[in-house]
């Protein structure tokens, strides 16, 4: 016998948590207890579960690293989804993003890539809503990390501008350890488990971890529309398998919101296609990576002093992961003629592990450049590096293949590595705009012998910002969901998350995914009664979700870095 709820939400990242909280507000405003369940395939985390460590045990608990054909994509695993591990850059996408028309030649006639209802202007109120909920702050120059400051000064010396990046981080609480990437142990980073989702649970939303949605069927028991089959996942205990336990349950709901992300929703919908025959033929297509393209820069510390007038560097390990970026290669390409040629350049610290990926092309053909003695030499200057993330306007070049029998990818063991049923091959345009970004970085950093450009190696795309696969569009022949996130011809079935985003954004995507999610759920609330949910009261007004840090580690800021810095220099 299926459990019945009004609303079932698959996934607890940004999209799922925002949907849960806003719908919970609706129930409260209508004087009802929320009949809302959030399913999450991963386990529940507290801040105190996180570690400043990249040991395999910890990574296995929090991440999936999914290898497809041509790309490796990082996904969050656990209650809070990707928000536990994001680097918290919180930027509004530029207007040009929403006006782009440079879709692929095989992708319909000349048209705007976003539905007509979405633009920067229509999203602005929702951006404001998200910025309030995620407590976004713009750092002062005194709070900009040295790596970001060095990037800013490098650009300045080359005649460019560079802006500070707003962050969803409590900068009073943050102690600048540069360990956002394995989960903030202090609760200083504003993940959804500290705001939207915590507030939703306080309102009575049920969150069920270790629960993986497997199959969607239609329900004939109106007003219930969908019947979802869910597997229990073995995530807890001493040595979890992280595989289905064999126990399954069913949820029957009036509204089904898929928020499993761009790597989760498409396989789920594709597997369910026999029961959802009216799905768009675009389902699982147009997978993108937000135009992510990384590189590194190896500074000559003496030149940092002589050319830039800074008091040295050698401290990649300090401060917020992202703090500065330049829009100069974006704003010099106005109008649709600039479509597909723009990019932004942002200083970013991914993790030490990302330094596996840099320094191609320095060697003669007979010698390796990304391993061996040369690579070792490049690693030995690690603390004089910065990493640069170019976010380019590319085409969404990926596509899902046949879905696996269970889940979104095959996890052969309890570790973080998985094999994903997708392929990703860069289009000519996607390659060209990346080459332009490389050339721009190289030109800026190699002036006066200041630094050495370190190109990305390997054949694969590496990405942590998967977008699309269920993109929103004007019509069913072009996309999977409409401008409200509702799946075409499947009433009450929604994709509210990264999977609905149709283009790369030019900025880190979390704020835009969240703003589009806020808009989608606001549209759903406007028509709630049509779906059998409580009618929206006339005085309904969305509020800022309260903040709840839960049990947490109290940060103790270092009184002096001198001992650590000296040790680093003595070894390095």
């Amino acid at each position, binding site marked *: 016998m299926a459990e019945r709820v009004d609303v079932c939400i698959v996934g607890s990242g940004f999209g799922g948590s925002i949907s849960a909280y806003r719908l919970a507000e609706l129930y409260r405003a209508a004087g009802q207890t929320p009949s809302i369940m959030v399913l999450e395939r991963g386990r529940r985390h507290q801040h105190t579960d996180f570690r400043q460590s990249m040991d395999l045990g910890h990574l296995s608990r929090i991440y999936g690293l999914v290898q497809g054909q041509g790309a490796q994509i990082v996904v969050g695993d656990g209650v809070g989804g990707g928000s536990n591990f994001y680097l918290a850059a919180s930027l509004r996408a530029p207007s040009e993003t929403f006006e782009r028309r440079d879709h692929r030649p095989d992708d319909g006639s000349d048209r705007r890539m976003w539905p007509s209802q979405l633009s920067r202007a229509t999203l602005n109120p929702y951006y404001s809503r998200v910025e309030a909920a995620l407590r976004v702050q713009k750092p002062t120059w005194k709070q900009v990390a040295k790596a970001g400051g060095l990037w800013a000064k490098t650009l300045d010396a080359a005649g460019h501008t560079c802006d500070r990046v707003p962050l969803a981080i409590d900068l009073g609480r943050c102690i600048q350890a540069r360990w956002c990437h394995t989960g903030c142990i202090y609760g200083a980073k504003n993940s959804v488990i500290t705001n939207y989702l915590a507030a939703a649970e306080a309102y009575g939303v049920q969150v069920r971890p270790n629960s993986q949605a497997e199959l969607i069927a239609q329900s004939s028991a109106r007003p219930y529309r969908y019947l979802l089959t869910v597997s229990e996942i073995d995530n807890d205990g001493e040595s979890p398998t992280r595989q289905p336990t064999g126990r399954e349950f069913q949820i029957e709901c009036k509204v089904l919101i898929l928020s499993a992300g761009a790597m989760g929703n498409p396989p789920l919908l594709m597997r369910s296609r026999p029961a959802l025959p009216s799905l768009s033929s675009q389902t699982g297509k147009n997978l993108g990576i937000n135009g992510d393209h990384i590189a590194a820069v190896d500074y000559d510390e003496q030149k940092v002093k002589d050319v830039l007038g800074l008091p040295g560097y050698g401290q990649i390990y*300090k401060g917020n992961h992202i703090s500065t970026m330049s829009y100069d290669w974006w704003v010099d390409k106005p109008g649709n003629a600039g479509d597909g040629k723009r990019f932004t350049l942002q200083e970013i610290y991914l993790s030490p592990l990302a330094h596996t990926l840099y320094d191609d092309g320095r060697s003669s053909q007979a010698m390796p450049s990304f391993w061996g003695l040369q690579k070792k030499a490049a690693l030995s200057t690690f603390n004089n590096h910065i990493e640069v993330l170019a976010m380019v306007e590319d085409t969404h070049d990926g596509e899902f293949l046949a879905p696996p029998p269970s889940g979104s990818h095959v996890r052969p063991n309890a570790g973080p590595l998985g094999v994903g049923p997708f392929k990703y091959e860069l289009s000519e345009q996607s390659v060209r705009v990346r080459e332009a970004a490389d050339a721009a970085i190289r030109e800026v950093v190699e002036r006066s012998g200041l630094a050495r450009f370190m190109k990305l190696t390997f054949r694969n795309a590496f990405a942590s910002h998967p977008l699309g696969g269920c993109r929103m569009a004007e019509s069913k022949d072009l996309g999977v969901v409409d401008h409200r996130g509702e799946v075409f011809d499947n009433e009450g079935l929604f994709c509210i998350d990264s999977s609905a985003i149709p283009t790369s954004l030019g900025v880190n995507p979390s704020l835009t995914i969240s703003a589009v999610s806020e808009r989608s759920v606001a549209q759903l609330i406007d028509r709630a009664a049509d779906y059998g949910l409580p009618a929206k009261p006339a005085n309904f007004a969305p509020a800022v979700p309260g903040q709840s840090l839960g049990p947490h580690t109290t940060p103790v800021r270092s009184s002096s870095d001198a001992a650590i810095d000296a040790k680093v220099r003595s070894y390095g």
Partner: protein
Amino acid sequence: MASHDPSIPSQVPQEIAGLLSRRDVLRRASILSLGGLVLSALPVADRILATVDPAEAAVDLADGTLQAVADTLIPGRRTTVTDLGHEIHPKAIAGVHPEPGAVEADALAVFHDPLIGFDALEPAFLAEVQARSLQRGGQFIDLPFQRRVAVCLDGLDPGNPSVIVWEAAVAVAFAAFIAAASQINATIDTASGYQVMGYPGTAPNGYADYSYRQKLSRELTATGSLP
């Protein structure tokens, strides 16, 4: 942390034979598009491995070869034990770099960690390594550094049908060295890779002197976002 037990006596031929059930390899080969190369190399590898004297080393030849591959990918100084205290095959490290390399940073432990799953690829990988080494004059572990480099260049050539397995080996070596993947809360005092990089590792007290504390460029926007 799963670790390899160096006290297990070497049983290379039996071990390889056990791991290399033909059906198993065929299944893996088809999954990984290994093609015919690895399969054709298997008899060669079996023959090579069968000639090894088990008494030669506490670390068996299969593990010694994995260590030698790791040492080619991130070369290091000669030493006898890893960060975690595990033994190193006496021939594994070529000794071409004065600082610690991937072997000292416990690459072998990461190769064998069940959370990585490289054990499933190991038989096919080692067979290919040995087949390619034979063309260069002997077993991989007996080759001088430059010939080891040549073998790895062949394996990592994008045209090699099994390049993905070689890239997995690269990823293992780098995960051990750069990320100290076999240590919980590693620091520069415990992880030799971090020492080479000059990376402090876990930083529970964060940093106070993290900013240049001055405006360093002109800005294009008032909010940080473009309109």
